[in-house]
């Protein structure tokens, strides 16, 4: 394999792993906002315990997800130096906004939320979670703005052999950005809903004594999924006219590119149908007493993750052979490094990410199995004492 093939494979691997963490982070933080708001207003212990239990899973996932994000960020410079050289003035702006306004602040607010548990005023503590959620979505906003530029470059002028930033506003109204951002946000909320449903179902399968706790969680998961999936599908289909206009040859980029797209749509439709069918079964806990749907809910957890990866495959592979559509070819952007160096880093990171995904799985499973605490114990110090 050539350096460009290896670098592409590495980018695909890193991004895919990273995005799995991102989806769950964004999905869970949205649900946590609802839970903690209810706790702060009502003061009911069940909402506090829900915030704590789901918050712990969220923190585990966040802390390990950061690592994949760091590798992701370095990768632009390591393997794709041509991108920064040529388009860094424009593409770099939203990317730097993401690191500064979004990630830098998000992690810091989250840190204070973790260590401020039970030590800060209730409303102040809630405000920190709102800020964390807000900056998390800001992160998605800027990353999608950067990616939208790669799909359909706008707001630039050519200056010699580099691009210059001409109109920053154009980057934020780019149709390939706005339509995709909505799609990604609802995908994350769907992941949150499906995950919460599945984990709650697992506890009912295990005949949990925490009936009230997991009944509420399961309902919240199902309702979230039912509300998010139609919007997800709507935002998905809304992208086809945009693609037809700006990337008419997208479906011909690779002969098999229709397959992941098809599977993604199938999973999306399936989740919509199943979640709406489950809604009436929430009455009098029918779905819990029937038991067999519980198994389907657990099996369902990986599906929205898989669908999201398929979606990205279509979006990114469909852009080829361009890195910046119509302006910079992928093969021209790869760094001048030896293929063997890229191969080495590809092997090292793929191995480490597999380990990381397993660690995430083990730690989350451990937290899930332990269930909600009867006696309140602090969520923090980080994931370590869980």
């Amino acid at each position: 394999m050539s350096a460009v093939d290896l670098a592409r494979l590495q980018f695909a691997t890193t991004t895919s792993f990273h995005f799995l963490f991102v989806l769950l982070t964004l999905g869970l933080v949205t649900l946590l906002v609802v839970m903690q708001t209810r706790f702060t207003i009502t003061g009911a212990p069940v909402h506090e315990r829900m915030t704590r239990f789901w918050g712990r899973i969220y923190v585990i996932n966040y802390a390990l997800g950061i690592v994949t994000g760091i590798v992701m960020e370095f990768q632009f410079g390591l393997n794709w130096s041509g991108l920064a050289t040529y388009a860094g003035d424009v593409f770099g702006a939203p990317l730097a906004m993401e690191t500064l306004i979004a990630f830098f602040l998000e992690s810091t607010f989250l840190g204070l939320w973790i260590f401020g548990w039970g030590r800060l005023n209730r409303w102040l503590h809630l405000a920190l979670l709102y800020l964390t959620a807000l900056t998390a979505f800001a992160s998605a906003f800027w990353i999608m703005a950067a990616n939208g530029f790669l799909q359909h470059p706008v707001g630039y002028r050519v200056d010699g052999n580099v691009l210059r930033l001409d109109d920053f506003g154009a980057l934020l109204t780019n149709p390939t950005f706005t339509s995709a951002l909505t799609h990604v946000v609802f995908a994350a909320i769907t992941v949150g809903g499906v995950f919460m449903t599945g984990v709650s179902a697992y506890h009912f399968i295990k005949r949990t004594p925490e009936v009230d706790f997991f009944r509420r969680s399961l309902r919240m998961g199902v309702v979230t999924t039912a509300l998010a999936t139609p919007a997800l599908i709507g935002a998905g289909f809304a992208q086809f006219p945009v693609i037809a206009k700006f990337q008419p040859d997208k479906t011909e980029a690779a002969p098999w590119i229709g397959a992941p797209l098809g599977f993604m749509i199938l999973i999306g439709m399936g989740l919509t149908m199943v979640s709406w069918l489950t809604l009436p079964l929430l009455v009098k806990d029918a779905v819990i007493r029937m038991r067999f749907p519980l198994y389907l809910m657990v099996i369902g957890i990986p599906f929205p993750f898989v669908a999201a990866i398929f979606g990205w495959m279509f979006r990114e592979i469909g852009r080829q052979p361009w890195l910046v559509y119509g302006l910079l070819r992928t093969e021209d952007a790869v760094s001048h490094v030896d293929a063997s160096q890229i191969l080495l880093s590809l092997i090292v990171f793929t191995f480490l990410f597999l380990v990381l995904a397993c660690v995430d799985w083990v730690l989350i499973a451990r937290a899930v199995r332990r269930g909600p605490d009867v006696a309140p114990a602090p969520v923090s110090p980080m994931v370590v004492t869980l």
Partner: protein
Amino acid sequence: METLWLTVLGVLTVGYFALAGFDYGTGLLLPFRGREVSLRRMNPFFLGNEVWLVAAIGVLFAAFPRLEGELLSGAHSTFTLVLAGLVLFMAAVQLRLWWWLVFTGALMVSVGWGLFLAHLLHAPWPVAFVMPVLFAVHGWVFQTRRWKLFPVTALLCALPIPLAFSSIDVTGLMAHDDTLGLLAWVAIPIIPLVVLVQWSIVAISSR
């Protein structure tokens, strides 16, 4: 503009190394010290440093686009070592299964940064050991709570790489003023805000 952005980059890099130094130092000293206590003392600071690194690389990309790629890809294998060490260190600290994985991760990151220092200075590879030694000393100062020495060792960890970096001539490698002006509005207020909130985290967790 040039001075401003070199300062921003310098502050972020110094922030990272000053905060990361005693994390990695703690990891390096694990074979010789009480592991439970050492790691617990590190808790409130854990992950606090990586955000500075991410911000620094973001600024490097946007403000110095013609430099970022050359700098990183020019030391490809060194950064593979640094990043692999980071992944290992962060995962191992959280998993807490085998302490020697924490040690190995810390060793890989610090030797990696040492190799990068040697690369920047065009110095022979044994210079790489400067960084692990400095981190270990800083970690020891932190663990034994010698707070008077702490700012000194923090600076010793923080300064070598930014100083070595300052030997690079950035003329012509920076982004256009249109991009830099826009980013300045964001970068300048955010840094003090993060410092304030991180300070609160430490203050609140030691209560």
